[in-house]
Every structure is written in C-alpha cells, then in structure tokens.
C-alpha cells in the first residue's frame, strides 16, 4: 500500500466488494449497466426496475462488452437520438415530475434511487455510532414520519387543515415540515434518554423502537393512507438534472454533513466523545450536548428517509415502512469502516456501504431471487465484511500465513 491510499484505506474493502459485485453483474446480468436517456412524458413508472430477460444466452464476454458500451453510450447520445421514443403515446399520469424533461434511466440509477433511504439513514447513524452510541429506532421513526405526512396530506386534500388554500402544488410542504419536525423531536427524545439521563444507547432507543410503530399506527388509525400529491410523490419518484431527485437529496445531505463534520470542529468533537467521553469533558467539550446533537441529527435523517419511503410507494404503511432499515443503516455504517466502539467515522464509507447493500439487493432481484430469500446472501456478505474488518480475524489469518511462511523457511 502506498502513502496516498492511507487516507482512503477504510474504503478499500467496501470498494473491492462493490467492484466484485459490479463485475459479477457485468458478466452475468444483461444490460446491467445500460443507462438510457428518457423523456419524462414517455415513461409512466420511473422507479420500476427495467425488465431483464430471464435466460442468459449471450456469452459472458459479449455481455460485458455490451455493458461497457452501454455505459459509454449515454454520454454520446443526444436527446434527439431518443426521438422514436417520443412517438409513443404519452402516459396518462403526467405528474410533471421532471425538470428539463430528460433523465437517465437504468439499473445503476435505480440502485441509487432505491438506496437513497439507507444512504440518508446511514449519515445520521454514522454520527451516532461515532459517539459510541447506536440508534435502533430509526425504522420506527421513519414509520412515524411517513404516517404524519400521509395523514396531513390527506387532511389537506380534503380541505380539513389550515393551509389547504395554498393549493396542492404548494401545501405539500406542510406535511414535509411536520414529518421532519416530528422525527427531529423523536431524535431529541432519544438524545434526552441517552445524554440527559445516561441510559445505554441500545436500551434507550429500544423504547422508541418498540413504541414507535404503535405511535405510527395511532396516527394513521391502523390504516394504510395513500396519497397522490405531486409534490410529495416527486421526492422519490421525480427527477432533476438527469438524476432521481432523491439522489440530490442524498448528495446535498452528505455535503452538508461532510462540511459540518470536516470543516468545523464538530467532527473532531464527535470523535473525541466517542473515544473517551470523560477525557473530552475534561478538555472542555460539552460531551452531553454533542451526543444529544447526534441523536437529533439521526432523527432528522430518519424523517427524511421516512418521507422518501412513503413517497416511493405513495402511501404510509406503518407496519412495513422502514422495517429492518435500521439494520441496513447500521450495516452500511459498519461496512464503511466506522468502528462500532466509536471514536472514528467515515461518512464516505457509509455511503459506499449503503450502495453496496442496495446493489446486492438489486442484483438478487434481477436474478429472480425471491425478495424474502435475499436476506440469506445479505447476511453472509455482512458476516464476511465484518470478519474482514475484525482485527482479531486479520491477526488469526495473518498468523496462519506467518506460521506457514516460517515452516517454509525451516524446510
């Protein structure tokens, strides 16, 4: 390893895994890397997975070459090249969900769009884990955020809520703000238990994890509330600047989080609290406040993820929204090299981890693996990545090699 890679060493294993997965797809999945430019009017369901032929008759090398060509193609293609597509009849459901009318369309884009929830969650989770904590309530908070947003939008649609006079084009901002506020409040609650009362993080967030879905069910009265407000649907189904809007949400949140943690002292404070809380308190850092803040941020991120999840399926399902996503977020964070013990964190690593998890999931779907069974290979990948990152495992493997080398030396 050379010196320059030192800064990005935590990214090596996740990136290698991701690269292997992409290579697998390049060889065995047709059209995996095919990205098209689509005009908004012609495509009805932007989030749907592109259909993949079941049989793989194309020889491996050829498929890889095709895939490579497909990646390069969109760059050269002008929108005019897509002219035939315009001749198709426009879809009935025109939601006006695209800025500039064109967007990229393909599996990699879909991975980014579907992975946006975990990526957003991973930001908050990374910061919480960096302080030596954990937040297992994010899935439940997502359900709460989605529930309140759906409830408010249904009230607004019926005109039963102040602000309905703004019209559907604008009043969707009310549920968004309400959902984010409520999720932030949930984060504040978690922070209060952990930092304020000194309860172990896992236990403190367990409370909201158990009770949160109950709260969400109470908000929606046990119903699944559907909505079709264009503004709210746009969040996870719309496109801007050629990419899904959710990707821009993720990017902007990462930029903000990155600037906050790496260009101000906040990141250093978080790491110092995670390393040694007492020492950092003696050094004059408001350790409790820093911890509290990370839970609030995590709650906010869960709120954004909850909105994305609700927007994606155009409804709030309190039972299933964000189910097990807290686990995905923790996995993404751990895969990205952030230590569960706290004290160091890598936002970029968490991003790669989230993309890795989503790529794995999407690959399974494209291989016609039942969604329920996807969990099996996912679990194996998790264990393998954790083992690779475990210092004990590395030491043991190294010692095996070392003893072999020693034996070789003797002979």
């Amino acid at each position: 390893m050379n010196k320059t890679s030192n800064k990005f060493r935590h990214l090596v294993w996740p990136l290698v895994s991701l690269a292997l997965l992409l290579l697998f797809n390049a060889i065995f999945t047709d059209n995996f890397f095919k990205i098209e430019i689509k005009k908004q009017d012609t495509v009805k369901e932007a989030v749907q997975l592109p259909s993949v032929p079941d049989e793989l008759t194309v020889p491996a090398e050829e498929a890889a070459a095709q895939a490579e060509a497909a990646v390069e193609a969109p760059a050269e293609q002008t929108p005019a090249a897509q002219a035939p597509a315009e001749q198709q009849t426009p879809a009935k459901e025109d939601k006006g969900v695209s800025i500039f009318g064109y967007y990229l369309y393909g599996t990699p884009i879909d991975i980014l769009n579907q992975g946006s929830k975990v990526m957003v969650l991973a930001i908050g989770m990374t910061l919480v884990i960096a302080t030596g904590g954990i937040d297992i309530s994010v899935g439940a908070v997502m359900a709460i955020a989605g529930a309140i947003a759906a409830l408010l939008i249904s009230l607004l649609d019926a005109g039963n809520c102040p602000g309905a006079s703004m019209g559907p084009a604008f009043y969707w901002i009310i549920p968004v703000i309400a959902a984010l506020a409520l999720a932030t409040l949930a984060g504040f609650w978690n922070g209060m238990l952990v930092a304020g009362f000194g309860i172990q993080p896992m236990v403190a967030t367990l409370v909201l994890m158990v009770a949160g879905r109950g709260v969400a069910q109470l908000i929606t009265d046990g119903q699944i509330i559907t909505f079709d407000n264009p503004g709210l649907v746009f969040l996870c189904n719309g496109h801007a600047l050629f990419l899904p809007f959710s990707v821009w949400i993720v990017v902007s949140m990462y930029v903000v989080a990155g600037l906050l943690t790496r260009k101000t002292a906040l990141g250093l404070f978080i790491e110092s609290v995670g390393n040694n809380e007492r020492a950092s308190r003696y050094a004059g850092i408001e350790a409790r406040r820093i911890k509290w803040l990370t839970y609030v941020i995590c709650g906010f991120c869960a709120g954004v993820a909850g909105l994305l999840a609700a927007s994606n399926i155009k409804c709030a399902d309190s039972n299933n929204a964000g189910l097990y996503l807290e686990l995905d977020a923790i996995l993404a964070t751990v895969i990205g090299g952030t230590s569960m013990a706290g004290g160091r964190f890598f936002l970029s690593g968490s991003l790669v981890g989230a993309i890795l998890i989503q790529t794995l999931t999407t690959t399974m779907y494209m291989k016609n693996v039942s969604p329920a069974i996807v969990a099996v290979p996912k679990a194996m990948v998790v264990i393998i990545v954790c083992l690779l990152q475990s210092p004990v495992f590395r030491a043991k493997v190294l010692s095996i090699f070392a003893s072999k080398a020693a034996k070789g030396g003797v002979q």
Partner: protein
Amino acid sequence: MKKFRIPMRYVPISATILVFFAVYLIGIFSFDNFGSPKVFLDLFLDNAYLGIAAIGTALVILTGGIDLSVGSIIAFTSILIAKMVSTGCNAVFAIALALVIGILFGMLQGWLIHCFSLPPFLVTLAGMFFIRGCGFIVSEESIPIQNDPVFNFIQNDLTIKLGKGLNLRFIVILYIVLLIIAIIFSQRTRAGRSIYAIGDNELAATLMGIPVGRTKIMTYTIAGFCSALAGVVYAIYLKAGNPLNCVGLEMDAVAAVVIGGTLLTGGVGYVFGSLFGVLVLGLIQTLIIFDGRINSWWTRIIVGLLVLAFIFMQNLITKISKSKSKSH
C-alpha cells in the same frame, strides 16, 4: 422491631411482580370473568413460546450480549417441521432435526462472537436475516399440520385435566419445567455463576480463570436451543408453520427480560423475572382484547413505556448502589 427491607438486588423483580398483580387487579375490577382461572391459564398457553424464547434471551443478556435471531429461528423451525410433516416425515424426527439445527446455529453464532470478537448485536442480526431467509427457502407460504398422530397425541393426550374446561396443556408444562431447570442452572451451577461473572465484568472473569469463551458459546447455544424449542411449541400451538411468523418477536423477548428486571448491560437479574415479564406482556394484550375498543397498537406503546420505566428504575438502583459502595 426490625424494619423490613427488600435487598437492593430484589427490588426490580419485586417491582415486576407488583406490576403484574396491579395489572391483574385492574383487569379483575374492570371486566367480569377476567379473574377466571381459564384466563389465567390461557395467559400461559398463549405466551409459552415467548416465555421459552425469553429464557434463552435472559441468559444471553446476563452475559452482556444480545440475541436478535430469536423470532427468525422460531419461524424457521415451525415452517421446517410443518413442511417435513406435510411431506410425510415422522414428526418426532422433524422436531429433533429442528432442535439440532437450532443448537448448531446458536453455537455458530456464539463461536463467531467469541472467536473473532465481533459485536453480538451484528452477528445475531446477520443470523436473523439468514435464518429468516432460510425459512422462506423451505416454503414461502403457510403450511398447516393436519392429522399427524404425534401432534394429535401431544395436543390431546399430554394434558393434565385440572377441572371442568381447565386443561394444563403440554406446552405450558414444558415451559414451566424448562423455566425451573433454567433457574436452577443459572443459580446453582458453576456454569450459571460464570454467566453472571462474565456479564458483570468480562475482563475480571477472564483473570479469575473462568472459561469465558466456553461459557459464552454455551450461552448462545442454549439460546439457539430455546428459540428452536419455542418454534416447536409454536408449531404445536398453531398447528401450522409460517415463515412470516414472529417478526420482531426478539424485541418482545428483550422487553420481557428487561421488564423482568434484568439489566441489559449484563450480570444483574434473574431468569425467574422473565416469567413475570412475559406474563405482564400477555396481560396487557389480554386487557386490550377484553376491552375491544382500544386500538391494539396501544400494546406496543404501553410495552415501550413499561420498558422505559424499568430502565429508569434500574439506572436509579445502579446509581444508589454505586454511591453506597463508594461510601463504604
């Protein structure tokens, strides 16, 4: 006259028992027939699988770890048994195989946790995904167990008739027997005491010469066995298997253990407490069913609040006992 005082370590479990009787009394005063013995027995019958799972969870939590794979193992074993029985396999063999798989799976988790010092939370999380997926590989749909001689025998003949309409079913007897064994094991055996020592301070336990690795792996193995047995009980209870069953049950088990007065950091608590934790959870559910008007989701919220209350109480007790030990 000597003042009667409960020793500090019995406070949480006393509080749990108090909560149980308080909720029970509320039920009796609010509804007719709530106090009938049948309701009380059904409490055991409906929650026997949760109780058995909670025994394993309690032991794991006592070592300072956590087992999140409980619900998935229950779902997997129940669907495996249902599938094997429905394809004409001997039910006894199916049950035995399910138990062996549970034991091996628990052992594997314990081995990964101990040998590579991976966080228990992560390993059992991956285990949860893995075994849940395996359940779906066995079958994606619910399979009923019909007309199986072994299951009929367990259901009909292995019951103690206490009176008119009152039957002590086999699964309830099984739960109580297992609970007694677990209590004796944790309190009266060397291995049981080692579990407490490790949960209290792993480093100190290592230095004292306690076989930490062996004990930890053993605990996760027991937890795997308990989960698999809970799956068997669940299959007997429902006479069916479904890979979708028991999603999130591990959290109920953890909640029951916490409400039962066990400290989640390990080392403090009693397996016996999990019985009352489970009964309190069951009582709240029964109360809400009896009422019929309240949204059943209040169960989750009340359980969450109860967990919170017990955590607060334990924090307080820990602080008091710490300040006491300092003053000495």
